[in-house]
Every structure is written in structure tokens, then in C-alpha cells.
């Protein structure tokens, strides 16, 4: 078999092992093949032309993709890129264990059909929306015997999320002096389940002097696809977004989902081999900013105490490790009147959500979550803030039982500017 095209960053790992303890799966299983170093070695073998077998695939899929190893690695190994490459090769030429038979069906359905299509995705989200309006049905479903993956999917589907009022104007004018024109990336899960966060972000941006456009034609960024080793649709999704945002002609593309932002910032690399898109993709990536990063940069005036008192912040992996952004969300929270910010111990460790991981590897995901919940309990807060929908869905069901709320940082910023203006449409 011929060696595949060499991925970026291959050969930069010196096998020093300094990444081991950063890795949730290594800390739990204690097996080198499930450590970052072990996984890099698997990817390097694949890059050298070895055909991935079921065991190699298993190690690559047991990875949460949290990229904590990138932060720990002194050699700058781009683990996220290597993982995407490895999984892509698994899907292209490799074999999977018989127990994983369902994965390929799930994968082709979700990543090749549902996510690329706004209509199909919307239809899939209907049951979740219905469940929220029918708590009795949700309770009844929960009492049925089912696999732990399905149980988790149901728990996530039936929690309360800030869905908003579904009115996100295509253009909104800055309030007061205009300082910038920005474009909003609305996303797929954010759009369906967290519309309220997108709406809050628009209000905050307007009040901070930004004209906000929400370009039509944009759709899911494709991050979940590349994480699952799917590239063809992912490239198409990236191209579509690039085109949609070029029309918007904005200085910045603001995104409030860390996982999407990390991927959008890598569009340049994703499309570097396509002459028609390489430069445009790089320009798109260069304009992409996380909402907290942008708000911290332009400065927001927060005069009102939001509806949270003692607050902590859970670093999204793809913000802290993927985009190296740690201070911006904290600075915003610290600046809010009436808010006591407490640091969460090991805040930058994964919560176990990791995209579809909580569904494909429920047991490991649960153990990672349990560790996180214990540390949240230690912090003694009423609110945990997040910057990513996956973390929200992972944490909220368990924390709801303990009377702790999960909020997006932007929601609190919105309240601190507009005072509990949830539901107010400009």
C-alpha cells in the first residue's frame, strides 16, 4: 500500500512522554497505546504506509480529541491535525472491530447526510425540541431500558437550553457610535438549541458599537466531520461558509462555539491544496474570532449584576488547547459587577463531552465527567460558565440535579450589560 500524503506536523514528536499526564484516557487506563505519545506513534505508522487495523482504530477513536496534549507538548506537535489525519486514513483504508459495526452507519448518516444539510439537521432536532415541551414524555422515555449511549443522548435532548425566540435578524445596526462591522457565525447545534446565546451575542455586539450581519447561506462548520475522519463533505461545508462570509464583507467573523471556532481558524490549512480557495480560506481563518476573545478585545461596559453570584469557568478544550484562549473569558467574568469569580481546579481538563464521544464511549465519558463534577462541587458555585455547546449539554443534566446552572459566558455578559434582558428582542 502506498504511503498517504504526509500530514502537517508528522515527525515532530520526540517521544519525550511529557504529554502523558495531560491525557484523560492515559490517566484512567494507564496504557501507553492510549496516551498521546502512543497515538502519535500509531499515526506515524499510518503515515509511513501501514494499514490501520482494528486495534489502531480503537486507540484513535478512544481519544477525546481534547488536545490537552498539545498544551503539554514542548515540541509543538499539532496533535489535533495528526488525529484528524489518522482517523481519515482509518475510514479510508482501515478496518474496525466487529463491535464497532454500528459506527460506520452512524457516521455516514450523521456526517455525510445530517450535518451537511440544514433541513435534515433541523428535522433531527425536532424530537429534542418536542421533548422540552413534554416533560412527562421525557420522564417516561428515561424509564425505558436502553444503552448508556442512548440514555445520554436522551438526557441531553431533554434538558433546558436557551433556545431563544428564533428571531435572528440578518442585519442589525450598532447602537451608538459604530466601531466595526462584524459577521456572526450561527452554527448548527448553536442555532438549533442555543439560539438564545446567538441572540445575546448580537445584543452585546450592537451595544458595543458593532453592526452585525448574520450571512445567509452559512451552515455547520464541519468540525465534527473532520474529527470523525470525514473530509469530502467537510471541505464542501468549509467552501460554502467561505463564500457566504465573503459576501458579508465584515472585519471579523465572530463565533460563540469554541469547537467551531477552532475548526474555522484551521480552514486555511484544510483548503491549502485548492488553488481556488487557499487564499480565501486563509483570509476567512484570519478573520475568525471567538466571541469572548472579540469582546475582551473591543471592551464592553458592564454595569448591572447578572443573575449569577458565585461563578466559575470551565475551559472549553477547543478554546484553551485548540485556540490558546484562556484569559479572555475570565477577564469578562471578573469584570462583571456583583459576580464572585472562583477558579475551578483543573479547569482546562476535558469534561468528557468531546463531540460525539459521550455517545460512542459513554463509560469513559462518564468517568471524565464525574471527576469534573467533583471539582465543580468543590468550587461551591451557583453557575458554571462555558463557551461551547458540547460542554453545556454534557454538564447541564448532571448539574441541574445539584441546583447549579450552566450558562454561556456571553449570556452573562448580555445580562451584565442589559440586565436580565433575556427574551428582549431589539
Amino acid at each position, binding site marked *: 500500500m502506498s504511503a498517504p500524503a504526509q500530514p502537517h506536523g508528522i*515527525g*515532530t*514528536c*520526540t*517521544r*519525550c*512522554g*511529557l*504529554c*502523558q*499526564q495531560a491525557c484523560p484516557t492515559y490517566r484512567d487506563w*494507564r*496504557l*501507553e*497505546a492510549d*496516551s498521546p*505519545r*502512543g497515538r502519535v*506513534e*500509531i499515526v506515524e505508522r499510518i503515515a509511513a504506509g501501514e494499514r490501520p*487495523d482494528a*486495534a*489502531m482504530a480503537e*486507540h484513535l477513536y478512544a481519544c477525546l480529541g481534547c488536545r490537552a496534549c498539545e498544551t*503539554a*507538548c*514542548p*515540541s*509543538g*506537535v499539532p496533535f489535533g491535525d495528526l488525529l484528524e489525519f489518522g482517523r481519515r486514513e482509518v475510514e479510508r483504508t482501515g478496518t474496525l472491530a466487529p463491535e464497532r459495526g454500528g459506527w460506520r452507519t452512524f457516521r455516514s448518516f450523521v456526517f455525510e447526510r445530517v450535518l451537511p444539510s440544514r433541513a435534515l439537521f433541523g428535522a433531527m432536532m425536532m424530537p429534542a425540541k418536542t421533548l422540552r415541551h413534554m416533560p412527562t414524555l421525557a420522564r417516561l422515555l428515561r424509564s425505558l431500558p436502553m444503552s448508556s449511549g442512548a440514555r445520554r443522548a436522551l438526557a441531553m435532548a431533554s434538558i433546558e437550553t436557551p433556545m431563544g425566540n428564533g428571531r435572528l435578524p440578518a442585519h442589525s445596526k450598532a447602537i451608538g457610535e459604530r466601531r466595526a462591522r462584524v459577521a456572526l457565525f450561527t452554527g448548527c447545534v448553536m442555532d438549533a438549541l442555543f439560539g438564545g446565546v446567538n441572540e445575546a451575542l448580537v445584543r452585546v455586539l450592537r451595544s458595543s458599537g458593532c453592526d452585525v450581519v448574520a450571512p445567509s447561506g452559512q451552515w455547520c462548520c464541519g468540525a465534527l466531520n473532520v474529527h470523525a475522519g470525514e473530509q469530502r463533505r467537510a471541505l464542501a461545508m468549509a467552501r460554502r461558509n467561505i463564500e457566504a462570509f465573503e459576501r458579508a464583507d465584515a472585519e471579523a467573523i465572530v463565533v460563540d462555539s469554541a469547537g467551531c471556532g477552532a475548526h474555522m481558524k484551521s480552514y486555511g490549512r484544510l483548503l491549502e491544496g485548492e488553488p481556488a480557495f487557499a487564499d480565501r480560506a486563509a483570509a476567512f481563518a484570519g478573520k475568525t474570532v471567538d466571541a469572548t476573545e472579540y469582546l475582551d478585545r473591543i471592551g464592553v461596559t458592564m454595569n448591572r449584576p447578572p443573575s449569577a453570584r458565585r461563578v466559575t469557568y470551565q475551559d472549553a478544550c477547543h478554546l484553551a488547547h485548540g485556540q490558546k484562549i484562556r484569559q479572555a473569558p475570565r477577564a469578562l467574568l471578573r469584570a462583571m459587577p456583583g459576580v464572585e469569580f472562583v477558579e475551578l481546579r483543573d479547569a482546562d481538563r476535558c469534561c468528557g463531552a468531546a463531540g460525539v464521544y459521550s455517545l460512542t464511549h459513554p463509560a469513559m465519558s462518564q468517568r471524565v465527567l464525574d471527576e469534573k463534577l467533583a471539582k465543580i462541587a468543590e468550587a461551591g458555585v451557583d453557575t458554571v460558565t462555558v463557551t461551547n455547546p458540547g460542554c453545556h449539554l454534557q454538564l447541564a443534566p448532571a448539574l441541574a440535579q445539584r441546583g447549579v446552572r450552566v450558562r454561556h459566558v456571553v449570556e452573562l455578559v448580555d445580562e451584565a450589560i442589559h440586565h436580565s434582558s433575556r427574551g428582549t428582542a431589539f
Partner: protein
Amino acid sequence: MDVRFAAALEAIVGRRHALTTPQEIRAYAYDGGVDRSLPLAVVLPGSTEEVAAVVRACCERDMRFVPRGAGTGLSGGAIAAGDAIVISTARLCRILEIDAPNRIALVEPGVVNADVSAAAHPHGLRYVPDPSSMAACTIGGNIAENSGGLHCLAYGVTSAHVLGIRIVTPDGDIEWLGGKTVDTPGYDLAGVFIGSEGTLGIATQAVLALSPIPETVQTLLGIFDSTDAATAAVSAIIGRGIVPGALEMMDALATSAVEADVGAGLPTDAAALLLIDIEGLRDGLEGTVDAVASICRERGAREVRIAQDGPQRDLLWKGRKSAFGAMGRISPDYYVQDGVIPRSQLPAMLRDVAAAGTKHGLRIANVFHAGDGNLHPLILFDKQKEGEFDRALAAGADILQACVARGGSISGEHGIGLEKRDCMPLQFTPEDLSFMDRLKSAFNPDDRCNPGKIFPTGRRCGESARTAKSGTLDERTAALAGEPF
């Protein structure tokens, strides 16, 4: 791998923790050094008793075994040389007790170095030896290598901080060496075990001495335009009777890699940097800090910076700690040397290192524990390029030879392992070596525990690593996987 033996191992540690398939054991074919070799199997016992049972099973079948911690070692100590299984301590990772009044900790060997200090911190205590790899390396590995660290200049290396060790002997018995107090009567067997590189048995518990966290620390960064000036400052500081908590040096090439990694604002145009920690009681510390700063200036420092706060200090040290790994930023591979020389020889030795680089056409970065004359030249190479690895090994051998010629030693803290075993004759006579062998035989008469390590094989210094590297891994891997290669 014999099926019955595999079944015996599984019966002891459970199926999940007895690894025999190529895909699982490949991840144990390397450590942080340059050698590569596949074990026959890997077992991860969960208790001292399981370790002993695995060792006895090995004895019954005349199988050899290699203890392994985190695999961050730099001399191939934790990889199998020849047919052997690896016994990993990864699951023996509990801190059993922090006894604050007596300032001791009882830990299992797989506990990560940094976790001991983290657990002791609430009691105002720390575990002093802090190798740069402290976020990953284990106490068992530290004991086996007698590891040093940035703060070992003032307080001593691992051997000064380990009071007792529970071991499984190479024939499967369980023994305590030393105890919970500083002086145990009779031979200092714990002292014999520390630094034995896994050849005298497997540590399964250790009693560590904890020390009070100093009241204050000040960190200075001395920036020099010549390495001679920086080394002169080092000698002057020590000569003045000042013992800094840490005294480290980096040259320009090392600084550029570190800066690419952590971005601590280090000047990449300086020829050498000194990183100095002054620790102690608040009273009187200012005076020492001023004295050190003026010594640096007298010896020609272009600038002396003092870290303003904890985060700034941490960033500077993070840079230093990441120095080895950061070589990945400027070179695909690196080969780290670990020579020790009398401090006064530092300037001359640095010239020897530079000469070795020129001779073999390779770049060499230098980071070192300047305070105790422990050099870490980092020889940069690219294993994909024909002949570069061989040249790196040759440059390494030249450097070690120069260390010995300057009255020093071929290893400060990274151990001999596989990588340097054939360099031992540079420093020891056959009589010395046979005396050491007699000690090893008292513990490990059949060379069953970590076979083939430390003692020379008869090849030339610098040759053994190459033999271990060229092909062996792939040949064995292919054989195991049943594929042609």
C-alpha cells in the same frame, strides 16, 4: 510469546493488563532517548504482591524482565534489550500517606514526581528533586536514575530525599531497604538501590523526605553576550559562598527553541542566559539577590532582570523545563548528552562541545545545570537524513570523551542504560567494572532484571545505540505482526 506464559501473566494481573499483541506493546518500544526495541509482552501489576507474582512467574520460565515507569528516561533504561517483558508501574500510582509532622510521604513507584509536591503543598511541604520532566516522570524512575533537578544544587539529588524503598527482588521476594528515618543501622541498602537503573529489583513503595517550602524565592535572569562571561559569573557566585536554589544556563540556540515554545520574552540574541533562584527566609534575601545581580554585572552581564511575580517566575522556569522537548521546534530529532565536569572547566568544555559540532557538521544547543557542572549538550539531527544519526552518536561520544579528559564523568543524571553502556570503559577500568558486577550479582545473579544494561558489550562508545536502532524494531514488529517487511 509462549501462550502458557501469557496465560500465567493474565492470571496474575488480569487480561486487560497483560499486553501481548503488537499493537499494544509497540508503545513500549521506546523511551525519551534514542534506542528502540520491542518487548515480548507488557504487564501492568496493581500491587506489590502482583509484581512479586509476575517476577516469580518469570523466574519459573527463565524469562527476563524490565521495570518501566513513565518511559521518559533518556538512556533506554526502560526498554527491553533482547528478549524480555516489560513490567510497568503505571498502575501503582497511589500516594499512600502524607505524614506532615514527620515530613515524609509513602508513595507507590508509579506516582508522578510533580504529584508528590502537589499533595504536600497544603502542608507547606514539597518534594525537592524536580527533574525537568517532573510533570510526567515517576518516583520509581527517579530512584532508579538517581535523578537530579533544577533545585538539586542546594538540596541534593534524589538520593538525599529517599529514606526507604520496598522492593521486589529479582527472584520475587519482597524486602524493605532503609526505613522511615534518616539513619537505619547496617548497610545503606536504599543507597545502593538508588541509581541502580532497574538492575537490582523493582521498587514498589518508597518513603520520601519532604522539605518545607521556602518562605520566599526570587528569580534572576542574567543576560550575557558571551558564554565565557556567563560561566565566569557562575564560578564567582559559588566562589562567594552563595548557594542558589537553582543555577541554570542556556545558550543562544537553546534559548531560541525555548522562546518558540513558551514565549517568556527571553532575548534570543544573547549568547548565554543564567537563570538563578535565590530562596530562603525573607530577611536577608534582598542582600543575596543584590550580591548575585552585581556579580553578574561585574562579569559582563548585559542586563539582569528580576522576575516581578509568581507567574513571571513560573514562565521563566517553564521555559527552562521545556528546553529538551522544545528542540522539536528547531530540529526533527535530538540526542541529549549528560556529562559532568568540574565547574572550573566549563568554558573549555563548551569549546570542546562546539568543536564536536563543527567536526560532525551538526548544530548543538546547550542547556545545563551550571551550578553543579552538569552539561546537557543537545545534538540536533534528522534521522531521515542519511548518516546524520551516526554522526550525532559520534559527536556524543566525542563530548563524553572530552568530559572524562577534563576530569569529569559520562553521566550526571540520565543514567547509562543501553545508550551509554559501551562508554563505561572511558571512565572505569575493567577492575572497577567487575567490582560493580559483583554488587549486581548479589542482587541479580542471573541478570534477569533489566538485562544488558549499564555494563559494556565490547563495542565502541557510540556504537551500541545505533545497533539498537537500526532495524531491530521493525524486524521484530514485522515478525510479531506476521507480515513481510
